[in-house]
C-alpha cells in the first residue's frame, strides 16, 4: 500500500516511516511542508496520506489546508490527519464532504501502534476514523441537548465506538461482548435515533456522525 507522509519534525517523520514500513506499507514520499505535500498528493495519488496538521511555512493548519485542497481535486483521496490537539471545527471541515476516507487523530495515538496502523488501513479502505476526544465532545453535547437521552449506557458505549469508526468486531472486542450483541445494540440505537440503517460500515459511521453533529 502506497503511503505519503507529511511531518516536519525529523524524529517523528523517521519514526512514523519506520512504523509504517514495519507494517508492510510502502512509504513513497515523506515531505516536511505544505506546498510539497499538496504537490505530492496530486501527482502521486497515494493509497493513503498521513498528514501532520501543523506544517511549514506558516506553522498553522497548513497540513489540513493541503489535505482539503487535494481532496477537492481528487475527491475521496484517503487522508489521515494527525494533530497535537483536536478541534471540532477541523473535524467538521474534514467530514464536510461526506465521502469518508478520512481520519482525524491526536498525535498521541501513534504510540499505540496497532490501533494507529488499523486506523491507517481503515482510512485507506474508504472508512472514517475520528479521535475519541472528538466523539466524546460530540456525545457530551448530545447529552446536554437530550438527543441521546433514550439510549441505555451500554448503547451509548457502542455508539461512541461506532462513531470513532470501529467495526462491529472491534467494538465487540473492546467491550468484551459478542458480535451479535453489538449488532443487537446497533439495531436498537438506529431505531431509537431514527437513523436509516445501513449494511455498509462506512455509511453507518457517517450517518452516526451526521446525527451527532446536528
Amino acid at each position, binding site marked *: 500500500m502506497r503511503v505519503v507522509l507529511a511531518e516536519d519534525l525529523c524524529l517523528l517523520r523517521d519514526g512514523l516511516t519506520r512504523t509504517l514500513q514495519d507494517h508492510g506499507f510502502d512509504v513513497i514520499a515523506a515531505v516536511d511542508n505544505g506546498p510539497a505535500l499538496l504537490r505530492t498528493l496530486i501527482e502521486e495519488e497515494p493509497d493513503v496520506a498521513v498528514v501532520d496538521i501543523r506544517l511549514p511555512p506558516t506553522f498553522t493548519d497548513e497540513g489540513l489546508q493541503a489535505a482539503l485542497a487535494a481532496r477537492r481535486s481528487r475527491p475521496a483521496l484517503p487522508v489521515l490527519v494527525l494533530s497535537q490537539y483536536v478541534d471540532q471545527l477541523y473535524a467538521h471541515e474534514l467530514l464536510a464532504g461526506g465521502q469518508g476516507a478520512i481520519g482525524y487523530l491526536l498525535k498521541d495515538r501513534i*504510540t499505540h501502534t496497532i490501533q494507529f496502523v488499523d486506523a491507517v488501513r481503515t482510512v485507506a479502505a474508504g472508512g472514517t476514523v475520528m479521535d475519541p476526544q472528538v466523539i466524546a465532545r460530540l456525545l457530551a*453535547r448530545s447529552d446536554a441537548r437530550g438527543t441521546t437521552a433514550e439510549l441505555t449506557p451500554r448503547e451509548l458505549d457502542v455508539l461512541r465506538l461506532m462513531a470513532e469508526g470501529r467495526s462491529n468486531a472491534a467494538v465487540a472486542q473492546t467491550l468484551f461482548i459478542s458480535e451479535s450483541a453489538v449488532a443487537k445494540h446497533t439495531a436498537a440505537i438506529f431505531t431509537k435515533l431514527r437513523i436509516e440503517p445501513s449494511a455498509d460500515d462506512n455509511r453507518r459511521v457517517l450517518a452516526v456522525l451526521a446525527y451527532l453533529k446536528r
Partner: protein
Amino acid sequence: MTGRRVGMAAQGSTRPGNRGTWARIRSAAVDLGRCQLLSLAAFAVTGAGGLVIGALLLLPVGVGFLLLPPAATALRNMSDRYRRWAAAWTETGAGTGPRAGAGERAVISPPQPLPPRHTGRGGLRRRTLAILGDAGFWHDLRWAWAEPWTGALLAAVPLALVEYGLFGAVVQPFVWRLLGDGNWYAFVLVDSTPSMLAALLLGLAFTAAGLRLAPVVLRLHARWSGRLLAAPYTTELVRRIEHLAGSRADVLDVQAAELRRIERDLHDGAQARLVSLGMTLDEATRLLDHDPQAARALLQEVRATSQRALQDLRELVHGVLPPVLADRGLGDAVRSLALDSHLDVHVEAALPGRLPAPVESAGYFAVAELLANAAKHSGAPEVRIHLSHTGGALRVTVADDGRGGADPGGSGLRGLRRRLEPFDGTLVLHSPRGGPTTATLEIPCASSLPKTSASSGTG
C-alpha cells in the same frame, strides 16, 4: 479619546427607526419644550454668571471672598444641569453625527469638582483662592458669558418658527380683518381670504419646519455645550493618565496571575507526571529480569501517564492561546466555540482579515465567557453571535432570547470588563428581566488589511 470634545457613547437601545407619525410629532413637541426650557434657562445662567462677576469685583474689598464660593457653586450646579441635559436629551435622538447609528448620547466629560470646604482658620480665604486657580471654574464662567447669546439664541430658532407659524395658521384666520392695512405675514400681504389662506399654509409650513428643526437644534446645542463645558484639556489628560496607570497595573496583575497559574499547572501536571514516569521506568528496568510480567504492567502504566501528561500540556496550551485562534483567527475560533457549545449557536463573522493578536485573544475569551453565561443562565436554546470590524473597532454581539435579567455586576462580567479595559474596550449589557439578552463588546483596533472605507469615525 483625548481632546475636549463631546464623546458619543453608543447605547444598547435600538433606534426608533419607523415609528408612527403621531409618536414622531409627540417627540418633536417634547424637543420643542426642551428648546423652550433652554432659552428660559439662559436667564438663570446669566444670573449665576452675574453673581460670580459680582463676587469677583468685590474681591478687593474682602466681601468677594465670602461670596465667591457660593456663587461658583451655583454656577457649577447650573453647568452640571446643562451637562446632564445634553446627555439625556440626545439619548434616542435621530443620529446626525458622523457615527449616526444606534442611539447616540452626547456625554460631556465633567471638570474636576470645585475645591472642597476647608476647615479651620482662613479656610474660606484658601477655598476662594483655590477656586480662582481652578481651570474648570473659568471654563464655567466663559460658558455663562457665551451661552445666552449663542446656545439660547440657537434654541430659540425652532421656538420662534413654531410660534410665528401657529400665529399664521391658527390665530390670523380669525383676526386678519381686524388688523387693518399693511398686515404682512412674512412676505404675504394678508388682505383677502385667498391671501389669508396662503398665509395659513405658510404658517403650517413654519410650524412643521420648527418641529422638524427642534431635535436637530438640540443636538447642535449639545455639541456646542460639549465644546464649552467639557473638562479642560489638562484635566482630560490627567484623567487619561490615571486611567492608563490603573489599567496598566491591572494588566500586570493579570499577567502575573497568569504566569503563576501556568507555573502551577506545569508543576502539578506535566512536570509531576514526567517525574513519576521516570520513577516507574526505573522500577520497570529493575524488574525486567526477574519479573517481566510486573515490568510489562509498569510499562503500560508509563504509557498511560505519558498520555495524561500530553493531555495536561494540551489543556495548558489551549488556555494560553487556543490553536485554532492562532491558526485561523477570531472568526473560525468563535465557530469552533460554537460547535463545542451545548446551545445552537449561529455565528456570523464579517471580519476583514486578521486582527492584532491581543485583540483576537481578548475577543475570543470574552465570547467564550458570554457563551458560557448564556449556556448556564439564559435557558435559551439559541444564541446568535455577530462579529464585525467597523469604524476602527472590533464589534461583537452575543444575543440570546432567554430569560434575561443578567447581573452586569457579576464576577464574570466584571472580570471581562477588566480585561477589556487595557484596550479601551467596552461591554454594554442589555438584559431586561424576561429577556432577551444582548451583550455588545467593542475593542478599538486596526485590522491587518488596508481599510477600504475612508470614514474617520471620530465622535
